[in-house]
Structure formats: structure tokens, C-alpha cells
């Protein structure tokens, strides 16, 4: 199937493109990119596949039945987004999400590449689970899925998992995610050993001994709600530990979902000193404070917890000055019954794939990032960290493309999510800007 996207405002940070132009897709690949404007006219305009029903046959015949022209005038055309932090729940927790529903949600949200965390059942800590995920994703997935393998066997933090073997099978990063490696020696070994395979180690920074039993940010609100607090220091202590270990070992450290002002400062300082560290945050950490929990709203229960206005400001500044490289979703779908219960017992997590882009566009609307910078944080930067050939509109690459209407307003309705997880604290929010069409390897999915 061929597609010609015409007259869209193309933004592709990987090539520095920010102009109106056309893109021709052929056989699932990007065939041509034509940029309007004198000095950028590198190629002649692509020939549109003939839209008119002519008397031709043969090649013309097939074009006639399979080609499509999309007029993207007034719309923004970007590479398919990369989300390097999702939970697809399969195998083991298919009642929460499956590879199929999770990737449907991804495509709906404008993501064409997702990386799934290993906290499945069984844990993705060996090549056979990795193989299963990749096979399932190839059969049922609607976008590219790269598994993230566990750092340690069973995510227990005791013994390194077979990182090299899983790497060969297709894992592109390693993380124990929600069960962070508490033993500093094991974490040191992970950062050292992973260098042999040139993969990043992703750290969910939380000192579990300090956060023990906590269900929300520690502060006056946690005291007055009678909920156990998780101090910001539980994150900062581990950010500092892992930065120190990255410096010691020269390993590639990626810090997941930064939520505190203190962490932003530590990462900024580490980058200045040339330490090999990158960082991500999620839309809820710059759109919501802990106040979202008032009245015991379990849909706002997330790990790390929602923090304060001061932290939001620091995270925005970190995004602006490049301290925070990427925006990921930490898409964590849960079943309704699990969230509708005692706050203490409800699981942590927000279903984020289908709101992430719109929520991130708020940064552009508020003038914190340019749209170029935002797209960079959701395409080029994760591609660089993961060293994958995705998130680009370069000729010859997979035709993973998103058409974005930045003016379209809509109300968040979790019941309409493709994800099985309806757990969002953004229910009822009116957002501006949404992906209206996602093309994955040349196949188009309309929202």
C-alpha cells in the first residue's frame, strides 16, 4: 500500500526538518520526503500515485486499488513516537492488559514503538520469556515492541539475570523497575556487565527501606489524609547512588520517571560532570500535584508518587534545559476492581499511553518547550538512548508516522480507551491537540 501525505508541516528532529512538505510511503517504508522551500529542495516533488481512475492496467491497476492520498494541510506530521517505559502485562496479567490491547492504546496515542518492562508473570528475566513477548508482539501487536529484560533473576535484586542472552533475543535495555536493586554491589555489577552488550540500565530510583509502606508523597497532605508518606529523599538518595555507580563503572544509566526537584538537580550536576546518565519523566509529573489524591482517589496513586508544585516547576525546567532527555508514559494499566478499593491496597499506576501526547503538548502551549523540542524528547532522544533506527522520517526507514492536529480539543473519557486500563486521574480533562492518524509501517490507524 502506498500513501502520500501532502502539505503537512513536517517536524523531524532527526533530520532537523521543520517545514511544510510531502512524504511518500511505499511498501511500509519512507520512500521520499519532499520539503517545500527553495534552499531545502533536495529532491523533485514525489510523484503522487495516480488518484484518478484511468484506463491503465498492470502497475496502475494496483496503485488504483491500494494507494491513498492524505491531505495534511494545517496538520503536523511527525515520526511515530517512542515510549521507552510501558507495562504491557503479558504474560501473566492479561486481565489488566495484553500485548494486543496495549499496542492498540499505543497506536491510538501516537506511539509506534514501545518498550515493555519485565514485571510480568513469569518475570522477563530469561530469553524464553523475551522470545514469547517478541513472538506475541509480531503476531498480535499493532506496533513495534522492544522488551526490557530484568537486571536480576526474578527481579529479586540478588543475582544478575542472563543479560547477554536476553540481549541477543531482543531485549534492548535492562531494569528491575518497581523492585529497584537495593544492593549497591549488584547494581554496580549490572552497570559494569551491561557495558559488554552496550545496553542501558534503567533505574526506578526508590530507597525501599525509606519508602516502606508509603502510598503517597510525604508532607502535610499525607499527614492530614492519614496515608503513609514516601519522602522525596527516597528517590533522591537512589538517584545519587546510581549516578555515583555510573561514574564509578562508566556504565550507561537511564533514570526512570523523575518526580522530584532534588533529582533534577542531581542529574543536571551529573551531566555537567560528563557522567553517562540520561533521564525521563512522565506527563503526570508535570501536570499533577499530590492534591489529585484528595478524597482518596486511587487513580492518582502512582509510583513514584505525585509531588508538589515546586517539583513540577523543577521538572519543567529540567525538560527545558535538557536535563530530562525524554518523556515516557510509564503506562501502568490496572483492572477497575483493583483500583476501586482501600487506598493502601490499590496498586500503583496510571494508564498513560492515550493521553501522553496531549498532556505533553501543554508544555508547548505554555511556552516551556518548542514543538520541535517536545517531539525530540519523544522520538529522537529515546531512539538515541536505545540505539534504534526508529523515531525518524529518514528515507528508507519504517513508515512510522503520526499526523497531529494541535488545535483539536477533546475530553478525556477513559471508557473510550483502547487500553484495558481505565485508570486515569485525567478523566474529564479537556485537552488540546491530539494524534488523528497513526501510520505504522505503512498501515494507517485513524483515531
Amino acid at each position, binding site marked *: 500500500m502506498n500513501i502520500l501525505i501532502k502539505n503537512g508541516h513536517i517536524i523531524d528532529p532527526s533530520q532537523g526538518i521543520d517545514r511544510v512538505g510531502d512524504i511518500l510511503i511505499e511498501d511500509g517504508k519512507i520512500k521520499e520526503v519532499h520539503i517545500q522551500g527553495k534552499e531545502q529542495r533536495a529532491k523533485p516533488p514525489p510523484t503522487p500515485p495516480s488518484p484518478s481512475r484511468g484506463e491503465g492496467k498492470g502497475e496502475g491497476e494496483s496503485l488504483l486499488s491500494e494507494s491513498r492520498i492524505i491531505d495534511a494541510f494545517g496538520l503536523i506530521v511527525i515520526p511515530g513516537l517512542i515510549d521507552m517505559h510501558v507495562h504491557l502485562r503479558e504474560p501473566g496479567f492479561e486481565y489488566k492488559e495484553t500485548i494486543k490491547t496495549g499496542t492498540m492504546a499505543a497506536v491510538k496515542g501516537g506511539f509506534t514503538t514501545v518498550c515493555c518492562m519485565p514485571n510480568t508473570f513469569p518475570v522477563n528475566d530469561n530469553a524464553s520469556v523475551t522470545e514469547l513477548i517478541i513472538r506475541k508482539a509480531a503476531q498480535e501487536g499493532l506496533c513495534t515492541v522492544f522488551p526490557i529484560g530484568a537486571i536480576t533473576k526474578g527481579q529479586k535484586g540478588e543475582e544478575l539475570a542472563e543479560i547477554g542472552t536476553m540481549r541477543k533475543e531482543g531485549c534492548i535495555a535492562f531494569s528491575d523497575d518497581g523492585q529497584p536493586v537495593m544492593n549497591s554491589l549488584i547494581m554496580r555489577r549490572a552497570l559494569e556487565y551491561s557495558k559488554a552488550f552496550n545496553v542501558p540500565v534503567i533505574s526506578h530510583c526508590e530507597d525501599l527501606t525509606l519508602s516502606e509502606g508509603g502510598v503517597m508523597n510525604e508532607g502535610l497532605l499525607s*499527614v*492530614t*489524609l*492519614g*496515608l503513609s508518606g514516601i519522602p522525596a529523599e527516597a528517590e533522591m538518595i537512589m538517584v545519587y547512588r546510581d549516578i555515583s555507580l555510573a561514574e564509578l563503572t562508566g556504565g550507561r544509566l537511564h533514570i526512570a520517571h523523575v518526580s522530584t526537584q532534588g533529582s533534577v538537580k542531581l542529574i543536571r550536576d551529573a551531566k555537567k560532570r560528563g557522567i553517562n546518565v540520561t533521564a525521563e519523566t512522565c506527563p503526570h509529573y508535570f501536570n499533577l500535584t499530590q492534591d489529585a489524591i484528595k*478524597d482518596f482517589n486511587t487513580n492518582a496513586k502512582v509510583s513514584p508518587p505525585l509531588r508538589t508544585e515546586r517539583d513540577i516547576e523543577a521538572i519543567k525546567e529540567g525538560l527545558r534545559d535538557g536535563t530530562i532527555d525524554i518523556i515516557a508514559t510509564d503506562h501502568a494499566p490496572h483492572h477497575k*476492581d483493583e483500583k476501586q478499593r*482501600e*487506598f*493502601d491496597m490499590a496498586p500503583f499506576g496510571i494508564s498513560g499511553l492515550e493521553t501522553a501526547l496531549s498532556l505533553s503538548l501543554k508544555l508547548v502551549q505554555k511556552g516551556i518547550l518548542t514543538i520541535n523540542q517536545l517531539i525530540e524528547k519523544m522520538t529522537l532522544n529515546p531512539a538515541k538512548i536505545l540505539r534504534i533506527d526508529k523515531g525518524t522520517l529518514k528515507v528508507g526507514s519504517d513508515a512510522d508516522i503520526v499526523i497531529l492536529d494541535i488545535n483539536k480539543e477533546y475530553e478525556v473519557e477513559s471508557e473510550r480507551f483502547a487500553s484495558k486500563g481505565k485508570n486515569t486521574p485525567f478523566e474529564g480533562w479537556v485537552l488540546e491537540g491530539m494524534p488523528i492518524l497513526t501510520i505504522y509501517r505503512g498501515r494507517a490507524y485513524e483515531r
Partner: protein
Amino acid sequence: MLTKKDLLGIKELSVEEINLILDTAAVFKDVLGRDIKKVPTLRGKTTVNLFFEPSTRTRTSFELAAKRLSTDVINFSVPTSSVVKGESLIDTALTVQALGADFIIIRHSSSGVPHLLAKKLKASVINAGDGTNEHPTQALLDAFTIREKKEKIEGLEIAIVGDIAHSRVAKSNIYCLKKLGAKIRLIGPPTLIPKELERMDIDVFHNMEAGLKDVDVLMMLRIQMERQGRGFFPSTKEYSRNWGLTSERFSLAKDDVIVMHPGPMNRGVEITSEIADGPRSVILEQVTNGLAVRMAVMYLLAGVKR
């Protein structure tokens, strides 16, 4: 008139509503002093005590209050084991409601459970203690007792001593007494007093002697034995030595100070028997007043327009 069908916490009440409950409780206290202590006010209504946490005094008090108002009472004790067995909290509550409950009195070890159920249920939900959040009827009966003894609350110096961090009684009392104009101070080890509370215009004392000076009302909290050895304090003995209410320390407070305790007491740990049983103690009167206050709450909630 109360405006909401539920009593979830003191945080949710206005000063007027608190005073209304206290004034109504005074009427019921008269009733309780009569030879025939029962009124037919809520005949035909059903009260269910839904306790997910063991409790004798609060449950008994609610049960008796409900009976004095002529409602039928069912005690639905849910040991934590059957929750583990699988029935969800909401299913349990809906089951109880399906039995025809008009009042559901809830105690649960997790904060916010009454709030969650109040949204799901048509019945009036009364919070009988949720996690470390609130225990509103305890605070109301304490305010009632103070008002009765001191004839006012505004301007009084009230000290709460002990494990503030884990005490829903302390939380509710802080909100209630502050709303009524009292000056609150907290006394205890720093590990048991969240420092954030100082932002609420509350004085914190870690030295018991300094904290007891000029106090009108002294509220002692139960020290839970489980806290020792978990880093909050090294031993109950050491706790007692520093923050226990002994006769020597007691003499530092005002002569007409009253001593309160929500019970159950650890005699010899947070309070000595001489004081607990002494002339300044109002501990048993608190228990009696609890009945009147709980009757008032149920009576007023029954009158809320739906």
C-alpha cells in the same frame, strides 16, 4: 441541620455543625440520665456495625447508642482473614446495605475506606476510625467533655501527648479543637510527631516538662507496644521515663487541669494509676459522653434531606 448524609471526619464539618452535634448531645445526655434511657426516635431503622478492625469500646458504644434510639442493630465483624479470603470491601458493604441498613458504622485499618464506601452506598456512613486518618466521634465526645468541664473551649491550652503520627484520635481532636478556638500543643518524641503539623499553627514540645506548663487540658494517647523496636523509640521503659505522665510532672500543669485518655490505657506506661484514677481524671466520663454524642450524630444524620 447537617448537610451531608455521612460523618466521615471532622475535616468535613463546619464549626456550626460541630456545635449542633454537641448541643444535641447535651439533650441526649439528659435522656441517658433518666430512669428509662430509651427513646423511640429511630424505631424501624437498622444500624450495622461493620468493623474490619477489632474494637470493643467503640463498637459497644455505637451499639448501645443505636439501641437507645430504638434502631435494630447488627454487628457485622469482618476479621481481616475473610477479607484475605477474597470478598472485596465494596461487595461486603453492598451486602450489608442489601440487608437493609440505614446506618453503617465503619472501622477499618486503611485511611479513606469510609469515604470510598460513602460514595457507593445510600446508607449513612459513620466513620468509627479509619487508619491513621480520623476518628470523628471520639473527637466530638472529647470536645463535649471539655465543654462540660471547662464551660468553654475557645482559648484553652490543650496538650496532646504521645504517638500523634499514628493516632486518628489525635488528628480528629486537632481539627475539632482548633476549629473551636483552642490552642493546641503536641508533646512526644520527634519520631512520633510529624513535623508538618507545625505548619498548622501548632506548638510542638519534645520535652514533657516544658510542654505541661500552663496546660488546661491534657490528653494522653495510648502507646502501642508494636512501635517499640521499629525505630520510633527504643523501649516502652525509655518512653515512659521521658513522656509518661507521672505525679511529679503532673504538678507542672494548671491546678484545675483535666486529664483525658481515649482508652484503652497502658497503666504505668503513658499514665500512672494515681492520675488515671485521681480527681482530675475525666476518663470514665468520656465513655459516658460517647454514648450521648453518638446518639446525637445518628439522630442528626437521620434528619439530613436526601
